[in-house]
């Protein structure tokens, strides 16, 4: 236990050092007009602006979910009792959700807390990267519908199968989602 907390604070220091060096470099670049540093700074601002539009809403929805949806409901649909319906739910939820992986990860944490099974959670997280509807429409319009259909047909079953294996493997370890 002690070792673990030590390790964690080590990580914190590493994070802090990276952050300080990075921002020192960016500020230095702006002052002394270094193009590469300024470009990186601008990338940071544009990506941050993009994320700020999504993340606060996502976390508020997660909070609402946590207080309003009962554990029994989650267990019934996304837990071991849910059967194949759980995976269908996971894919529907992933397809209609905004934000992709970055939102799916905190959502997975609240689902886990409420008793969803691991393979459904991993299916959901992986699917959030590949089945989002707005993205899929974009893909089909630029690369053709056949391209999209093959990608779905191949990747979805593989995601479910690999999630089941991962669940089986992790059930023997003492794994938990933070």
């Amino acid at each position, binding site marked *: 236990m002690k070792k673990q907390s030590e390790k964690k604070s080590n990580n*914190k220091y590493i*994070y802090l050092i990276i*952050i300080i060096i*990075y921002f020192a470099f960016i500020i230095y670049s702006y002052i002394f007009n270094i193009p*590469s540093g300024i470009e*990186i700074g601008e*990338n*940071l601002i544009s*990506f*941050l602006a*993009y*994320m700020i*539009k*999504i*993340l*606060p*809403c996502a*976390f*508020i*929805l*997660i*909070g*609402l979910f*946590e*207080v*309003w949806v009962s554990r029994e409901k989650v267990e019934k649909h996304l837990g071991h009792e849910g059967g194949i319906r759980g995976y269908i739910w996971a894919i529907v939820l992933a397809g209609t959700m*905004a934000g*992709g*992986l*970055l939102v799916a*990860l*905190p959502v*997975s*944490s609240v689902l886990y807390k409420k008793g969803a099974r691991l393979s459904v959670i*991993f299916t959901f*997280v*992986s699917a959030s*990267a*590949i089945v*989002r509807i*707005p*993205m899929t429409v*974009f*893909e089909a*319009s*630029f*690369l053709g519908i*056949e*391209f999209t259909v*093959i*990608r779905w047909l*191949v*990747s979805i079953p*593989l*995601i479910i199968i690999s999630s089941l294996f*991962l669940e089986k493997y*992790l059930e023997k370890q003492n*794994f938990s*989602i*933070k």
Partner: protein
Amino acid sequence: MWFFVVTGVLLLLSFLLDRAKTRKALLIAYKRILVISPSFVIMLIFVSIILFLFPQEKIIQYLDSGYHTVNVILAALVGSVTIMPGFVAFPLAGILRSSGISYMIIASFTTTLMMVGTVTFPVELTYFGKKVALIRNIISFIIAIIVALLIGIYFGEIVL
């Protein structure tokens, strides 16, 4: 935009039904943001550097040179380390297609781009831990390669 509206409506509804619960929900949201913010800042730093190292012109240049098989792997690696939203990625894929790059290479690039999260790794690590985050991304990489190969077969780019 619809995301704001949905969140706003649900929040209002929740507030009207039960103030105490809504307060609790907002507190949960706040705490969860605090937990993830350090990894999130690290991710933003990675993203800003990666976007600098891999601008669009460079990606096109990478995927448009050398041997076919090598390019499939190269595309998978570039897709794994970069990050971009769909509305940037697919127009880019369209450009790649019109400059004669095969579906297989494009699939390798876009699928790893979507599925393998190198820059989001610090965030994933916070929730799943190092080992599981790593396993999940390796599995995603393998699935992406399988998708690319099957797309190659379907479009007749690989002759069996």
